[in-house]
């Protein structure tokens, strides 16, 4: 009798042990990007991962895959400052940081902080502001670490459902948290959030998880169910299919943005805040679509 119980215990332990056996393979992200600049720039003239005032980057390091998006605040144009300079330089600096290994995968806020500090070390007097969202996949631990400042963000989709998403950080309507460098005369009156104010999160991911990182040009025009619909069409994990899906999502958002009668999430939110608007929100759209796959060299 006792031996049967102990035998049963042994078997149970072995089975449970086998089920929870950690996967020792490294994971990686297969990522494709697509986007549209607002107005005239139709996104085909992509200037090195910049779509209008948005910018993004995809970088690999030995230990991690890192992506980022930044949405340049367009209001600077009125003061003679090119908004894409700040977001573009921020993203390129983050990319360089990652490539040189000057980061810790579990601390994506650190990437933002260091990158912002490096912008201040530039002889060129950079001006402008942008939101930022950084997503880091730690290859070995299979954990996704994210940092989000502002209203760009990410979704993690598993089995056709959203399992993780970022929260928007807004000061007030249409004024997201933003990293900025202001001219000295306007220092007090320009919104400037510290990189440490970014929201961070960490969670495990599984093979086949889909991660969508985008600027608010996407989320303000396409509600979740539409995005999920598009993602259902993703059958393969190869780069071409991901590229195709990213393109179709971005295109659809672009079309909806210019539809005057469509009740976009942006319009919905505006109505909830007492502003009677309808239609899409023309904006720069940047979409980074990634799938968690096994690491291959």
């Amino acid at each position, binding site marked *: 009798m006792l031996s049967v119980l102990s035998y049963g215990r042994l078997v149970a332990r072995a089975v449970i042990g086998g089920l929870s056996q950690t996967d020792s393979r490294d994971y990686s992200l297969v990522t494709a990007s697509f986007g549209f600049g607002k107005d005239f720039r139709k996104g085909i003239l992509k200037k090195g991962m910049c779509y209008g005032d948005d910018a993004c980057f995809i970088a690999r390091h030995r230990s991690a895959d890192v992506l980022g998006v930044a949405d340049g605040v367009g209001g600077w144009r009125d003061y003679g400052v090119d908004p894409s300079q700040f977001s573009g330089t921020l993203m390129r600096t983050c990319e*360089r*940081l990652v490539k*040189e290994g*000057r980061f810790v995968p579990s601390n994506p806020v650190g990437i933002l902080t260091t990158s912002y*500090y*490096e912008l*201040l*070390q*530039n*002889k*060129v*007097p950079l001006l402008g502001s942008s939101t930022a969202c950084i997503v880091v996949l730690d290859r070995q631990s299979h954990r996704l670490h994210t940092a989000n400042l502002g209203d760009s963000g990410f979704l993690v989709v598993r089995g056709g459902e959203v399992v993780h998403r970022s929260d928007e950080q807004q000061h007030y309507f249409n004024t997201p948290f933003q990293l900025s460098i202001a*001219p*000295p*005369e306007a220092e007090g009156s320009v919104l400037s959030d510290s990189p440490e104010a970014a929201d961070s999160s960490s969670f495990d991911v599984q093979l086949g998880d889909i991660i969508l990182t985008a600027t608010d040009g996407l989320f303000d025009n396409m509600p979740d169910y539409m995005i999920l619909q598009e993602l259902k069409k993703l059958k393969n994990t190869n780069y071409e299919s991901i590229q195709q899906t990213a393109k179709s999502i971005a295109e659809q958002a672009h079309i909806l943005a210019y539809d005057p009668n469509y009740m976009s999430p942006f319009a919905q939110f505006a109505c909830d805040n007492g502003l009677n608007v309808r239609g899409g929100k023309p904006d720069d759209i940047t979409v980074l679509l990634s799938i968690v796959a096994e690491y291959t060299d």
Partner: protein
Amino acid sequence: MLTLLSMFYYICLRRRSRSGTRGEALGSRRAVELGQRSALPVTVEVEQYAKEVLDFSSHYGSENSMSYTMWNLAGAPNVYPSSGDFTQTAVFRTYGPWWEQCSSAPQPFRRTPQNFHSQDYMELAFEEPVYPTAIDVLETYHPGAIVQILACSLNPFSQNPPADVRWEVLWAGEPSKAMTPQARQFSPSIKQISFATNLLRLEVNSSVLDYYTELDAVILHGVRERPILALYKMPIIDISDLSDSDEELADPGLCCRHAGDGKHNHGNGYFDKLPYELIQLIVSHLTVPDLCRLAQSCKLLHQHCCDPLQYIQLSLQPYWPRLSDASLSHLQSRCTLLQRLNMSWTGNRGAVTPTGFSSFMKACGGNLVCLELSCCHFLSEACLEVIAQTCPRLQELNLSSCDRLHPQAFGHVAKLPRLRRLILYRTKIEQTAILSIITFCTDLRHLNLGSCVMIEDYDVVASMLSARCRSLRSLDLWRCRNLSERGLAELVAGCRLLEELDLGWCSTLQSSSGCFQLLARSLPRLRKLFLTANRTVCDSDIEELANNCPALQHLDILGTRMVSSSSLRKLLQSCSQLLLLDVSFCSQIDSRVVQELNSLFPKVAIKKSFTQ
């Protein structure tokens, strides 16, 4: 003859078969087959980018940053072939003649050899040791600074380093200036050496350049196997090679040729007729190695060459590869009257130990007035303690870039009350030590705290300086991160004799507080003012400088958007002694304005850097 040739042919064939079996493809390197004559074996050439920057004497950027810092030299190029002032390049701290013109510059040492031009250096480690065949330096801005390339026999990544470390000069040249500031690939023809190396050292001199030189990458081409000396190409035997071992600096005392015991020495010819002082004067023109060699020639000259009066000033920096503890101990007996000693760059990788240095100091440091120890990584806290004890008369101490020195070591510097010139650029000195130094060394004239990142509160330091060091003439606070207008106001109130003030990249100073205007009004003797990358400098600051600082010679206002050409014109008119004006990245000052100002004020070098 025939047997010799056939032996040679046989050896070649053996080598060829051996290298064939050992060939492997390494992912990141491109193997290029050097097609040579069929009698000689086919060798595989390997190209490598630098893997790591191990050591350097200075750089423009911040510690822990990747903008304008030396670490950018590692890896593949980021900028080349574009030209311009980019953050992703390696930039040194100084350029041109400007720093030497300042009163804070050190006096040059006598007996510096003609062919020693190096002002800065950096050491690069590569992945794999090879016999170098070519070296490419990708310079992306104002090229021409490289003056020497050396290779080391030591593998910096090996676990057990060998006892003897050899440095061989691959190429040496004069500091030059290229025709345009555009990017170029510098590939000097290098000497063949007899050992495989993966550690290179580049020495630079930017004194003839118009602006900061910027380097992007260094490529080492080499072969894995020692190239067989081609019969038609003899290696160039350099006479200076013969003295490569420590002969002259190691055993100067040995070879005294005695003419015989008891016999009076008449054999010096005319030298016997010359007065002692005249021979001393003749010998005073020799460089140190020549002096040591001459000492070995005969008894009379040995007496002259070992006379301590010849060693009142001693610069060992040009001989940094060969200096060791043994050399120091042999020089000890001659250096008892030593007043100025330059040991910058020496003793690394174990050549000089703290014990050897300490015993040298104890023997020779009693009269020391000036001690240059820049980049001396062998220094320890004990060494500084010995210096403090044995050199009570010390007035000048340079510990620039001694970044491995423990913060506690600097406490001993406070025991040198006669200090006038103190350079602590890029050291890890902390708040308590610097305050203690300022308290006791009230004679300080020149103080360099550039890039001293461990000092927490510069306002307190400035306040202390104004209270204790009232004869301060120059102060370098490059990249001090938290000096505010309060500290600056106290500083200029107390140190009225200030002539040079470097506040480059001090981002916490705001012009709106009036601190720069106060500065201009308080320092009438001001000759050098660097406000590099302080984005708040405005027209009223420039006008105050124009009104109050007629002696101004060097001004750097890089990166401000708020200075217009009219205030600059006023400045140039009032400050007739102005020689350097850096208006790079000042958005209101475009190249047309610069040209106009250049034509009106031709004496002034107006610098406008560009990125594209």
